């Protein structure tokens, strides 16, 4: 049907759109693997871009996925992930009402911002970190105050200095994606003491299960002492359930009660809830994944040293490499070899790429493609 001019004039959609939406551009995710492979002309695709766990879900979760009865797909899931919240509560010594489960951790970021921010408010976070805190704040019409990283880590003093009367939430990614740096428990406590309950402090622990350092804080344990602390975790990374989209937040009951008011119930599907229930706390899986990451990092850093490249290798199942070329060009060139990495310009690290630690074959293929690309570029 052709829209007539009068109708189009009346619609004038521009007049309906808030200014902060006009200025914002939709995030365009990657195309599906089959389309990417066809475009890049490669017969395989090694996904080293999204920090996925190449071991796949823990065995018990895998079994749930394999045996999920089709008729269950026609039944609504638990609207608030009741059993999963009970299990989380038991495992971490908190009350089930201290948890909110979302369709990936991204959804709970939106819940918290919606719950606490109103027109004129702001959030404070780092400039070079996971983008979603900044995005959700910006497209919701709130200012995102970005504090430069210091030595690749969140700058606590810098963040505190940006707080004003309208600051509602401070977002800390611990360990930071993509640098892998982290705040120790002592540093986090010092920060929380300085904030003194005046703002909500969100600590995103998406990669906490990968960290083996003894001074790394367990945010969930600190909630009792700091009722303004909200902790995010996900089943996408260590537990390899990224495709099912499930994550959660935990906090003081009063805080979570507020956040729940903005929460979309029934957003987490039943299969995700059941798989997460079984995956949670599989220590063997965690140890196997940590070993894989350790081995892959050892091999990769050795090869990067050999190639004379600078890198930042901290906590988490990834590391960042600085290239003597544009990161987005490197992305395109590596794609022709069937290797997909994350270009870092979007993280404000131009000429850096982030690589997910993977199985030896994939790591070898990456190193080979990288060496060839650099050789051709010289």
């Amino acid at each position, binding site marked *: 049907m052709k*829209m007539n*001019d009068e109708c*189009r*004039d009346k619609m004038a959609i521009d007049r309906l759109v808030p200014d902060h939406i006009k200025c914002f*551009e939709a995030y*365009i995710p*990657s*195309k599906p693997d089959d*389309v*990417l492979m066809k*475009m*890049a*002309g490669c017969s395989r695709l090694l996904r080293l871009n999204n920090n996925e766990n190449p071991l796949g879900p823990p065995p018990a979760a895998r079994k749930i996925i394999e045996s999920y009865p089709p008729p269950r797909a026609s039944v609504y899931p638990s609207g608030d992930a009741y059993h999963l919240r009970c299990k989380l509560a038991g495992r971490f010594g908190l009350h089930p009402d201290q948890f909110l489960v979302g369709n990936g951790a991204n959804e709970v970021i939106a819940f918290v911002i919606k719950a606490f921010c109103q027109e004129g408010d702001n959030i404070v976070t780092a*400039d*070079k970190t996971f*983008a979603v805190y*900044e*995005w959700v704040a910006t497209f919701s019409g709130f200012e995102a105050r970005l504090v430069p990283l210091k030595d690749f880590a969140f700058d606590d003093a810098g963040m505190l200095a940006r707080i004003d009367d309208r600051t509602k939430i401070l977002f800390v990614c611990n360990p930071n994606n993509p640098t892998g740096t982290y705040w120790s428990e002592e540093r986090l406590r010092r920060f929380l003491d300085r904030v003194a309950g005046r703002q909500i402090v969100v600590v995103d622990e998406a990669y906490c299960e990968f960290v083996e350092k003894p001074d790394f804080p367990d945010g969930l344990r600190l909630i009792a002492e700091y009722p303004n602390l909200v902790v995010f975790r996900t089943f996408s990374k260590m537990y390899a359930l990224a495709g099912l989209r499930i994550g959660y937040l935990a906090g003081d009951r009063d805080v979570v009660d507020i956040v729940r008011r903005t929460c979309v119930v029934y957003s987490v599907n039943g299969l995700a809830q059941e798989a997460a229930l079984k995956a949670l706390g599989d220590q063997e899986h965690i140890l196997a994944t940590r070993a894989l990451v350790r081995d892959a990092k050892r091999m990769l850093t050795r090869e990067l040293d050999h190639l004379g490249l600078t890198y930042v290798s901290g906590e988490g199942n990834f590391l960042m490499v600085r*290239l*003597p*070329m*544009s990161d*987005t*060009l490197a*992305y*395109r*060139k590596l*794609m*022709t070899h069937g290797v997909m990495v*994350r*270009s870092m*310009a*979007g*993280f*404000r690290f*131009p*000429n850096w790429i982030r690589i997910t630690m993977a199985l030896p074959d994939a790591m070898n293929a990456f190193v080979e493609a990288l060496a060839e690309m650099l050789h051709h570029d010289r």
Partner: protein
Amino acid sequence: MTPQKENRPIVMKMPVAEAFIFLAAAFVNHAAKGLGLDEEGADALSLATEEVIAYLARMAHAEQDVEICCSAGSCFIEAKISLPVRELQLHAFNMTATVNADDEAGLDQMGLLIASRMTDRFRIARSAGQRLVLTLVKEFQYPEIKRDTSSQAPGKLGQYTLQAADAAHIKWFLRLVNQYYPDALIPLDFRYPGKVVDMAAGGDYQILTANGAAGELGGGIAWRWEGRKTVELYGPYIFQEHSDPQMACDLMDMCIGHVARTSALTLINRRPTPDLPEGYLEALEPKRDKISTDDSDPARARFRMMVEETGEVVWAHPDVVDFLQSEYRRLVFPRDIQASGSDGEAGEPFSVLSAEIDRRLAVATLRPIWPGGDSAENLAAHVELLRREAMATILFEMDLGQAWQAGFTPGLIALGFFPRMILPHAGSADLLIFQLRTDA
């Protein structure tokens, strides 16, 4: 008290009829003055409007309404004249519609051409909903930078911080840029400090400078948006006696950091300076012999993608497929090039081209608006006209995301245009830029 500058658009709607020509002219004159344009500029803009409306009154149907919208940019006033058009009328909006190329008097009678001569920029484009939009732009007048005084460049700065330049630092930065760099590496705007200050205040330019501990100005970088998907970068400019590669890298990092997480897909630098650090940008143009007589500009355009390229389909006439394949291979852009051409199907009789004329730079850019069987003749007429208007550079922008635009290729090649470069993602897909050979 100084009255606050008005920047809301002012809109008038009226019938396209001879009786209202002067109303339109008076409206634009008063609106332009109210928005801050001087008497002379407002008169030129209103005369141009008068010509356009008179032209439309002859071409359009009397029952149609025309909408005139005057608005202020950071350094210019713009009058947008739009009206709904029926397809059969479209061909009348070629700038050449009434031109008899052999008859100077005929040229002088052409309203659209006269309008273009009275303004700094003039363009015709087709917008959504079958509306045709004629845009007339008149810039504010600014004094040119004084070149008779020189500022001393600082020695090597041990420490520096990067900061968004305020008005005073912008002027200082421009003095140093004009002093230390050849014209070929400086955009024309940089000769007019007041204009750049206004544009920066309006968000059109962003300028970062590197300042030493004692306030010395060691270098800087500037960028501006071209539409929603492309950012053009200028510099980096380093003023220290011995260049400072680290400062150049820091400026680049900061610039890219600002542009990241915006709608920009590509960053382009048409005038890279010798200070541009290796590895940040890619060569945009293929290696080829000199393309113009202007040998003062040996620099080659550079670009970088701001996002991960995931590939797309482009449409092209067989005559340029070799060029595209070779360029996409060099740039490592995954593209599915689909052939587009006529297979004898019925088509429109008359093509339409829009022309954007920049008189200061003597650059004209043609863009296809509507396909038609007369595309080769129409192109030839436009080229003839633009040559008469002393345009030194004539470009043609082909959107490779629009299959029908490929139909203009044979006409372009026959006239002496050659495919010069691809601008990734600058249209609905990539833009293929053709340029007319100077010896054609």
